[in-house]
Structures are given as structure tokens and as C-alpha cells.
């Protein structure tokens, strides 16, 4: 094990992970704040550090189409996008998921316009919750790199054969440099399936002609959907297995779909995903010092959704708070809805909306959220409609 540590942004962490994973076809269209991912990869390819076909396509829709085409030959494909770009390619994001085309896509989470914003919000990724992609949310640049490498293995695993998305928050991760350990190339080679070996779900081969994506009548259609559903269930084990194997080569183990922080003895737990979970952990330490019994659950995967993990960790707690950097209008936080379905009314769940369009979610905010949850628990209060954090209420007077 030769470990190199470099100071890398989240975007460069993605680029290095893609280089180490020896992706063979890159197709991408630039969008802020994804740009430095595809710029760096172009540099790797042109500098001979990566042996890949780099397709400078004219839109995100074409980027995803090209990745589908490349995946259909059995090649290892990668793209990256953000926000408007992800929604522009949306039709084919569904095609990739429902058609079982293995590939990896990095999504730098960014708010949808209007108003224009280049800062983080999770609605872009969450709009693609239901289309057959494994979806990771990264907390740190190290996690970005590690999850991207693992994603290629998970995506190409015969039990899964689905595309995988790695989400990293705009600027907070994408453009912030931190020390990141890079695994040794030979270890990554051993960790990932051999290039060109994949035969599933099919490969385009004139010697074995078949048609893919044909019309399916209702009598056949549901089985196609069930196959994806089953793959996503298999992904639970495959993700954990890949995370353990990855730990053996790097010492960094990813052996659960969630990460619990000081949860076992906590009365109240906060649940979130993405970069701000790090601040939540700091807040929990401060709350503990003040005598509040609070823990944090980080959702590492949104799909497959960690039902059992959330149910287990939240069992017996007095209150659960879900902090969403997203919103479903007329409903509430999307994460809140998902977590509530896992908990099934056994523990009261309060939703918080924070950080939309890149507004800071500070440690102080998390401390206040924790204190409020403990207060609600102590007073035996019922959960209320979502609480918007740091909202300028005077605007609405």
C-alpha cells in the first residue's frame, strides 16, 4: 500500500478517482461548479496520464447519451454535471437507470433556477431519486474520492449493473481544498473489475445480435421494472461489501449505508446528508459538552434508502430531526419524508429546512436545532410543519 496525500478540491478528488479507476470514455459538458472536474480529466487525458476517449459533447443530454452508448459496448464510462445540466439530461438519466447501463456520474449539487444560483442545494439530485441510480452523498473530499472509486465497482457488480451517482456539494466540497489520500494505482486495479470484462446487462456485438430497449407490452413491462428494483436491493449488500474491501486497501472502511456519530447513547438524533453533516458532528460535540444527549446519522446513500439502519439507530430515541437542503413544495423536506417512512411513527420526527441556494448551515444553526429538539422531547411536544432555519421573515411582512 503506497499512500500519497495531496491537497485537493472535491472536484479534483473526483478527477483523480476517475483517473485511478481507468474510466475509458468520458463525455461531458461544462457547467459551474462541475467544470474543474472535466477540465482536470481533459488534462489527464491530453497529458497521457489517462488512456480514455474524451468526448467534448454539445450538451448534457448528449453527454448522458454518449455514456449510455459507451456503456452498451462494455466500456467504463463517466460524466459529471450539476443542477440545470442534470435536469437537461434527465430523460437519459432515466434511460441509463431503467436500461441498466453501468456508469458513474458525479453531481455537484447546485440549486435549480430561478433565481439563478450556483450554490448548493440537493433538489437537482433528489429529482432523480426514482430512476434506478444508486445515489451517494459525500461529506468530505476524501469521501468523494473513495466513493467515486467504489462506485465503479458497485455499478459493474453482476448483482447490481446499475449506474451510480456521487453527489458533492457546490463549493463547500467542489472548490474547497483539503488533504486527500490517494490509493495506490495497483490497489485500485485489484479492487475494480478488469476493464473490458463486463458482459452484463449485454454488450453490443454483431456476432450476437439482439435489440435493446424495444417496446414492451404491458404483459412484459413490470418484470423490467422489478429487475431494477431487485438490483437496487442487491446493491445494499454490494455497497457494504465494496466499502469493506476498500477499507482493506486504504484503511478507510465504508461498511454501512449510514454513518452514525455518537448515536448509541443519544436521546435525540439529527439526520442529514452531504457536506453539512460535518458541521452537525461539531455541533453534537458542543451539545454534549453542554449536557445535551444528541447524535447524528449521516445518510451516505439516498438510494438504496437505508430503512433498516435508520430504524435500528432511531429505536428508542425521544426525537428525530431531519435537516433538508432541499424542499418539495406542498410537502416539506424530501429527506424528512423518506426518514419518516422508515421510522413509521415510532419516534416523533421534526423537519428542518436549511441551506437552500448555498446559504450557510453553521455549527451554531445545528446547535440551535439540537437544543430545540431536546426541548421538544423534554416537553413532550408534537412535531410541527417544517422549521425554516435562518429565514429572513421580515421579507414577508
Amino acid at each position, binding site marked *: 500500500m503506497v499512500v500519497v496525500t495531496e491537497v485537493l478540491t472535491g472536484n479534483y478528488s473526483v478527477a483523480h478517482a476517475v483517473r485511478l479507476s481507468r474510466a475509458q470514455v468520458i463525455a461531458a459538458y461544462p457547467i459551474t461548479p462541475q467544470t474543474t472536474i472535466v477540465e482536470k480529466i481533459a488534462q489527464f487525458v491530453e497529458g497521457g496520464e489517462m488512456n480514455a476517449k474524451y468526448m467534448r459533447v454539445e450538451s448534457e*443530454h448528449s453527454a448522458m*447519451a454518449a455514456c*449510455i452508448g459507451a456503456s*452498451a*459496448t462494455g*466500456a467504463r*464510462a463517466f460524466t459529471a454535471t450539476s443542477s440545470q445540466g442534470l435536469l437537461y439530461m434527465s430523460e437519459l438519466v432515466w434511460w441509463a437507470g431503467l436500461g441498466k447501463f453501468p456508469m458513474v456520474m458525479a453531481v455537484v449539487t447546485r440549486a435549480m433556477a430561478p433565481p439563478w444560483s450556483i450554490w448548493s442545494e440537493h433538489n437537482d439530485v433528489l429529482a432523480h431519486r426514482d430512476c434506478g441510480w444508486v445515489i451517494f452523498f459525500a461529506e468530505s473530499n476524501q469521501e468523494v474520492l473513495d466513493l467515486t472509486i467504489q462506485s465503479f465497482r458497485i455499478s459493474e457488480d453482476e448483482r447490481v449493473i446499475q449506474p451510480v451517482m456521487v453527489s458533492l456539494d457546490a463549493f463547500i466540497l467542489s472548490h474547497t481544498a483539503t488533504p486527500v489520500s490517494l490509493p495506490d494505482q495497483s490497489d485500485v486495479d485489484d479492487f475494480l473489475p478488469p476493464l473490458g470484462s463486463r458482459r452484463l446487462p449485454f454488450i453490443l456485438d454483431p456476432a450476437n445480435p439482439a435489440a435493446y430497449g*424495444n417496446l414492451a407490452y404491458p404483459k412484459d413491462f413490470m418484470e423490467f421494472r422489478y429487475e431494477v428494483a431487485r438490483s437496487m436491493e442487491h446493491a445494499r449488500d454490494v455497497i457494504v461489501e465494496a466499502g469493506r474491501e476498500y477499507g482493506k486497501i486504504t484503511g478507510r472502511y465504508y461498511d454501512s449505508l449510514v454513518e452514525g456519530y455518537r448515536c448509541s447513547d443519544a436521546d435525540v438524533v439529527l439526520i442529514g446528508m452531504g457536506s453539512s453533516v460535518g458541521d452537525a458532528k461539531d455541533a453534537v460535540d458542543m451539545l454534549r459538552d453542554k449536557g445535551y444527549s444528541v447524535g447524528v446519522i449521516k445518510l451516505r446513500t439516498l438510494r438504496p434508502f437505508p430503512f433498516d439502519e435508520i430504524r435500528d439507530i432511531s429505536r428508542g430515541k425521544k426525537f428525530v430531526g431531519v435537516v433538508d437542503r432541499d424542499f418539495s413544495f406542498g410537502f416539506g423536506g424530501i429527506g424528512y419524508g423518506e426518514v419518516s417512512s422508515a421510522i413509521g411513527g415510532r419516534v416523533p420526527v421534526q423537519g428542518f429546512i436549511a441551506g437552500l441556494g448555498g446559504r450557510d448551515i453553521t455549527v451554531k444553526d445545528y446547535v440551535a436545532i439540537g437544543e430545540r429538539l431536546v426541548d421538544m422531547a423534554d416537553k413532550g411536544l408534537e412535531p410541527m410543519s417544517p422549521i425554516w432555519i435562518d429565514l429572513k421573515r421580515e421579507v414577508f411582512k
Partner: protein
Amino acid sequence: MSVPLRKLSLKEYLLPGQASCPGCPATIGLRMIGKALGDNYVLVIPACCSTIIIGPYPNASSRVPVLHIGFAASASTASGIKAGFDALGKHGIQVVVWAGDGGTADIGMASLSGFAERNDDIIYICYDNEAYMNTGIQRSSATPIGAWTTTTWTGKVERKKDIPMIMAAHKIPYVATASIAYPLDFVAKVKKAASIRGAKYIHLHSPCPTGWKFPSNKTVEVGRLAVQTGMWPLYEIEHGVFKLSGVSKALVDKSKRRLIRDYLKLQGRFSKISDEQLSALQRYVDEIWEEIVLKLNGQRTPSTSS
């Protein structure tokens, strides 16, 4: 330059029992691609009539692999396939797009232009039946002036978009027009396209009995008339050099062109064409040929280096 009939492969690449309408031009085109290319190619097909012609799961009427893809994405998907084959060292397999006029001239225009600009090594064939036939005969930008469709009940006002010339403006190595009524010319053009590296575009005129309202045994006759009237000139632009092909060569002389009325009268879609639309259509044809004459007279000397 046509391929002699006796040299055409007897092997069929579109199997019998497929689901096209009687007299379907797309099936002629799909058969001829196979006869031109042999076994070593894959087809990319966006949403179009051929989605249905290839057949529903678990059957397929194609003897070569087919990847179905979303409406706007055939060129970019094909580019990805080519990149994948290259990355895997599989260099001999031709990647062929088979897309309708809607998937080419309208919704697919951006990805079409993208593949051409990148000069990706693909043969893109647009089979042009001049409307959205699979969804029920709605007008496309390839529908001619005066044609009835289910979204132009009194005849289309705008002229047909000139996709082959738009493709030629991308300076790709090979652009050609063809017609299902001249299959040997089409086969020769597909073969030539296969021999050239880079982006190739062939626009295949494809009269549709269902959408154009003519009897299903008249597909080839209508196709021939489109060419003989000058409505659909056959040509090639190879490395920038424009050359008329087949019967179109003689049509520079206006007196050799048949009256467009002969072409229109076979088709129910033109049965209510107004005099004004008719003269607009005549002007359209005249202008096509004026432009062709300008091209033939004014073009640069063929470059030997290209």
C-alpha cells in the same frame, strides 16, 4: 456509381414478419443498409417508426444489434458507442444511426450537429418520410410546402428544411442524398460512406403511403417521381465536392424535369393544395436547382489532399 443488382448480397438483414405498414419505405432502407454493409455493424434507432418495425420485446426483426434510444439522442449515443468500441480496441464495427426526419431535423438537430462538428466516425442515415408518421402524421420541419398533416390541415406554410446542406456546412467528409426508389444508388452511397473515416450523413427520401395518402403499391413510383420532378435531387458531397448522381444528373436542364403536378397528384396529402401553395412549391424546386447550378459552376477544385 450504383452497385449492379446481381452483385447485391442475397442475405436479408431485416427479417420477415416485422411490423411495418404495407408499402413502408423504411423497410426498403433497412434491408439495403444490410446489403451494403454486411454483418459487422450496429444500429442506433431513436423514437420513430423503426422502433416499432424492429419489433416488441422479446422479438426483433433485425439481424444486427439494435440499441434503441431517446428521441433526441441517436447521434450522441452512436458517438458514445464508437468511443466505447475504440476504447476496447474493436475498430472494425460500423456504427450506423437510422433516424426519422423528426429525430434528425427537429428534436435531434443539436446532437446531429454535435456529432458532425466532432467528425465522429459514424454513418448517420435519416430516412425522411416528411412528417412525424409514428405519432400520427404531424408536420415536421422536413414536411414540404402545401402538404396536409394532422397539425397542418390546410397545408404546411413553411418550406422543407435543407438538412443535407446544413450537414455539408459542417464540412464533414461525406454527405449524400438518396431515395428508396433508387436502392442501388443508396447501397453504393452507404458503401462509400463506410469506406470514409469521420462523420458521414445520408439523407434518404422515403415516401410513406400511410402519411402521404397514396396506395401502398406506389411507394417506389412516388419516390421516383420525387427525384424525376427535381423535388428531391440525388447528389453527393465528398470532401466538399458536389456531384449530382443517377437520374438527377440530367435534371440541371429544366426541360428534363417532370412536372411537379405529376408527383403531387398521386398523393392525398396534396389533394387540396392551393394555387398559391403550388406556385410556392414550384419556386422551391426552381430555387433548389438554381443553387445546384451555382454549386456546380462555382465550386473549388477538388483537393487531392483531402
